[in-house]
């Protein structure tokens, strides 16, 4: 009960918890949260355990949670069989390019609109805001045609650059830049700094927190996205990232020898692991960036 004493603000405070009805209430609250946690944690655990079953075991009644045996060698065999490493390298390469584009282009545009404010910036701002909610798939056809017309089909370029035209990231940058003290820029202008110098010397050093936030969103998006890469890299199976590989595997499940459900579940388990590592490392930044920006992905 020592903990409870520290609870001095909010809806309920320490003195509340001393009363019996509130004690029951508190117990109920913890119970509900526990249930919520079980619901969030159970599916991935099920996935992980199921992936160690054999194809037949996975499908046969009766239901079991645990596999008959844990063969770690299955992971290694599957990894080697699919040459999974190259998909990870592809994904990494994709993420790096996406990071570069997303920070540079959205950052620059936000800098121009928020600070430099050239004539016409309001029109650009409105247009960007209008595109805020247009999902890529909505215009997939003409977009692929555009990509084809400039000869970028089958390459990573469009998959990098698309992150450079993201209204969400733009807004994040803009809101942040709007809050920077104006006097800094006025002073710099007096000192004869050009617009580019101002960006490099003032904006960039001050932008670390927001760059962090946008980076986290970008890494997550570039890692998770499969539709655009699936279509742009169709016919280029050597260039496909992990998610596209998983989708193709899923799409061909049972059509080819060796493409079985247990293996699909295992490659998904394996693909979640980097996400978990990333999450553990950047846990604080991730949860706080979500809370402060109000944007989920």
């Amino acid at each position, binding site marked *: 009960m020592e903990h409870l004493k520290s609870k001095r603000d909010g809806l309920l405070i320490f003195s509340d918890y001393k009363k019996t009805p509130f004690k029951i209430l508190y117990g109920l609250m913890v119970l509900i949260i526990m249930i919520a946690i079980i619901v969030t944690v159970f599916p991935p655990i099920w996935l992980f355990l199921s992936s160690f079953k054999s194809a037949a075991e996975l499908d046969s009644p009766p239901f079991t949670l645990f596999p008959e045996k844990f063969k770690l060698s299955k992971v290694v065999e599957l990894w080697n069989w699919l040459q999974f490493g190259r998909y990870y390298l592809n994904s990494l390469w994709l993420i790096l390019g996406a990071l570069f584009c997303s920070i540079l282009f959205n950052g620059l545009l936000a800098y121009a609109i928020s600070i430099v404010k050239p004539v016409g910036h309001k029109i650009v701002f409105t247009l960007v805001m209008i595109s805020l909610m247009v999902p890529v798939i909505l215009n997939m056809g003409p977009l692929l045609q555009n990509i084809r017309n400039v000869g970028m089909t089958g390459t990573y370029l469009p998959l990098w650059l698309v992150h450079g035209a993201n209204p969400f990231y733009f807004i994040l940058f803009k809101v942040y830049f709007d809050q920077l003290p104006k006097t800094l820029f006025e002073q710099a202008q007096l000192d004869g700094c050009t617009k580019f110098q101002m960006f490099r010397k003032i904006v960039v050093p001050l932008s670390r927190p927001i760059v962090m936030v946008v980076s986290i969103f970008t890494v997550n998006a570039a890692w998770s996205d499969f539709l655009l890469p699936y279509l742009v890299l169709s*016919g280029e199976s050597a260039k496909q990232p992990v998610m596209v590989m998983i989708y193709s595997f899923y799409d061909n499940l*049972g059509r080819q020898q060796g493409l079985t459900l247990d293996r699909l579940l295992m490659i998904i388990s394996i693909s979640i692991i980097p996400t978990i590592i990333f999450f553990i490392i950047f846990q604080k930044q991730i949860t706080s960036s979500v809370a402060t920006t109000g944007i989920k992905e």
Partner: protein
Amino acid sequence: MKKYFSLLVILLVLVMMAGCKNNDKIKITIGMWPEPFMTDDVEMFNEWKRLFEEDYPQYEIEGKPYTYSVDTFFPMANNGTTPTVFQTWFTEPQKLIKNGFVKDITQPLKDLGWYDKMDPEMREALTHEEKVYGVPRDGYGLGLFINLSIFEEVGLVDDWNNDGVLDIVDQDGNPRYPETFAELKQTASYITQTEKTLYDKNVAGLVILSANNNGGWQFSNIAWNFGAELQKQNQDGTWVSNLNSPEAIEALTWIKEMKWEEETLPASASLTYGDWYNKVATGQAAMAFAGNDAISMPITNYNMNKDHVAFVPMPEGPNGEQYSLFGGTPYMFASQATDEQIKGALLFLEYMGRSPEMSEVSKQSMRVGMETAVAKGMPILPTIKPWINEDYLTYANLLEQQYVNVEMSNFQDFYDRFHDMRKAEEPYYTQDMYEILDACIQQVLTRETANPSALLASANAQFQTQYMSQINE
């Protein structure tokens, strides 16, 4: 800033340079090249590549694995990066031809003398306005796949001749499998009930696919056998949709009764291509409609005992009609390929053992293909042959007899009767018709109150206005 831009420019240049490697050889990209993880097959293909390039030094073979899928093909073809030769399904050619994505190869085929050796019905599927656009790899026919150990459990079959293999044909030569749809219903229902009462197990009597156009695909065969024609030609020559004939309604009603009266179908109403065999192989279902080209799947992927498998003809309908839906896998050629590339790609098929040529290299490749399949633990069974020239058939049959590793009597009836039963898929907008039929099947599988007649009537109207009305314009 300058730094960033120059970086970008360098990146651009690098990417472009990677695109064009110069080389004066004629490059042929092979789309049916196996994915890197199919190591046995890759080795085999590499050997074929080596032999081919030795004999034809002007060519360079490049493997570019591409698994055909409807959604990725369009962007790839539109971009002009289709491999020189790739593999697809028999429902696709007409669409690909109309969109101009594939190349007319009539002349080279005639030059090689392959045109007349091609199975005429398969050639028909690859033909548009007298021109041929592809080479068949093999065919398949729909039949009934049976898990014999379940049949044995409920006392339907036994190892009559005591050779360790369960037999679908008894000692008197009588087949023990359902030969009509009425019998199929009876057998399926009997299995479900018996398994329930004797062993307290949930076993579906039959698996019918129901999603991703597979439902419509299997339903057309069922409907045919009930006497339906799903697309028909009027006297004036126009084609119309005919999805709601009394026979088709009867067929859909049959499925509905299997589900709700006999309760002998699986719970899921969204079964796609591979889903039948996990159910049959794991003992959740006794029978399934399937193509004979997929018989090996439950055996290789689920370690099913190949001595517990039978594959028998599609049952006969109430009016004595009996068909086996016949489709297959063709090779097709990118529209942007040059005549030289086409010629090279066709010649490479010979090195893969996929041509009617009976040269030494071709024979050798056919044998290697067989050995690779054996090494992978696949059951060796007859295939539906794409070529009809005598020397090809003789050699192919000889090979099959040599390598066959299953009890043929459990399969014989299907192969014996296939030639007379086979019927090609409906000609127009086949996949789109399947999509619409899928919805009808899903409806009867998920709603006990579904009305097959009303469902097919609206499906018919939809298919006629959205698709069939366009071909007669």
